[in-house]
């Protein structure tokens, strides 16, 4: 059971958060006055009268930017994983089990990431030249 100890905190937060939300909304409905009028049923109670439909169409531009963001963003996950092991501190180079030195390892890591970033750069150049970043 001791594996579960780290999860106890998470569990407590979950329980607490859920409880907080439930209790508060229950309190509101129980204590608050319940007078209904049409103005309360509007989307915004700030006095602005909503126009048009609720399903607003988002312009395609947003999707385009969203797409580009998504793709380039997700590549950082590789950078993260790479950065963790880049220095090679976890590897016991002295043991003789590996056929290379720490420096070689770092050079190799740098080179590999350079290729990766380079290809990514090309993709970015492509998107840029094709007008993917222009807002119009």
């Amino acid at each position: 059971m001791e594996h579960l100890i780290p999860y106890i905190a998470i569990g407590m937060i979950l329980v607490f958060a859920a409880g907080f939300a439930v209790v508060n909304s229950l309190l509101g409905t129980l204590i608050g006055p319940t007078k209904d009028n049409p103005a309360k049923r509007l989307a915004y109670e700030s006095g602005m009268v909503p126009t048009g439909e609720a399903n607003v169409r988002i312009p395609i531009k947003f999707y385009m930017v969203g797409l580009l963001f998504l793709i380039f963003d997700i590549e950082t996950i590789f950078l993260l994983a790479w950065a963790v092991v880049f220095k090679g501190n976890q590897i016991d180079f002295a043991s003789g089990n590996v056929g290379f030195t720490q420096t070689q390892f770092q050079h190799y890591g740098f080179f590999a990431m350079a290729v990766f970033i380079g290809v990514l750069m090309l993709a970015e150049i492509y998107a840029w030249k094709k007008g993917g970043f222009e807002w119009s």
Partner: protein
Amino acid sequence: MEPNSITLINSHDLALVAPAIVLGVSALIVLLVDLFSMKLGRSVLPLLTLGGLGLALIVHVTTGYRGAEFEIAFDGCLRFDRMTYIAQIVILSLTLFLTLVSPLYLIRRRIPRGEYYVLIMFAALAMMVLSASNELLTLFINLELLSFCLYILTGIEQGNLRSTEAAFKYFTIGSYAAAFLLFGMTMVYGATGATHFDEIRVILASGSLGGALGGNSLFLAGGFALMLVGFGFKLTLAPFHMYAPDVYAGAPTPVAGLIATGSKVAAVTAFFAIFELMIAWGDLPAGVYYALYGVVVLSIIFGNLGALVQPNIKRLLAYSGVSHSGYFMIPLLAVMTSPELMDKAELAVTYYLLAYGVMTVLAFGVATTLGPEGERDIDRYAGLARRSPVLAAAMALALLSMTGVPITVGFVGKFRLFAVAVDAGLYPLAIFALLASVASAYYYLRVVVKMYMEEPPAEAEPIPLEGSNALALLAGVVCIFLFAVLPALVV
């Protein structure tokens, strides 16, 4: 892994993937040239692509696999053996062929050429690595890379609803199938605790599955079943083939050709590696055999019946591809009943990879060369022999080869496939497959009859033939005969 064997990178590994690297670099070069050059550069694109593919082919033949039983690269992620070697040559040649026949088609259909060539090369790259995959993740990544390239290529035509719809179907069903494949991989990983095929094979052969799910062999069996579903999609095995006719019909013809040939060749090679894992497992449930048997029979039935009354040439080729996929799997069934036939089965499948690739791509090549006329109803092929004897001859040859007429690769290929089945004593299957291939003559001949024995439509004119197209078609025709007369050149 043994101590001292860990290296970062070495020339041996690089030499084995050199063709793929060449392909990748030239794809990027094509991309840049397309981006930064004005009018002049556009016409260079096909040449650059051809150059890249040609160089990759040369590099592959000169530095690749050296006839050893097999070679391992990148810590066992890639495995190069005879089948892979030939499949890769076939893949590169098919791509080269399609690049040769497509320039005029692209201009006519206003397909963005830069992207087209780049994606074609990336697809070829993905197929090359896919066919050599020896690890679950490598296999999955390359399968997805290949699929992505093909999704985009399918819908690359602007303002063509058919093309867009085809891309939509291909994309959704493809992703759906990929998810099944991935879930199957999950189970295999869970049962064995390894992703390298070499490790998995050792674990399976030892009989004790070490993974977290290893206690229950149902997970492993289920995993293989789901992977069969995923590959069933790529190989257009019934009942996972439904998308194929629609996608082929909607996609630009050369792309349909690539989907039908290159991607299938790569997938068959990759599936064969999975299959080797399956039969390495001593406790393989008999159900796998029956399931595969059912899939094969169903594919042959669906493929042949679907093609029987099909008016559209590309859909016809799609259905014929379904039945050919069924034929592909026959030697695997034979190996399951009598494992000593493994070597023969591998040779038969390898040869059929080439045979199937050559004859199918030739048919698609003719359809591409014909342009808009070539991808519609078979009726448009009426009297083609009068309008363009070369095209008609090439098409007739491709179809006769699919029928299995001697001195074509199709005959030798089917002969070897069925011979393995008979060797294993699978008489009902052999008889059924033979009958089906006899019946297939009906719909293949329909096209030949149209081309040779009917009058062309009144308004039809002779069809001019581009130099590059003629060259490619001629090469295809030569291959159909050459490898049939001298199969020893292959295996």
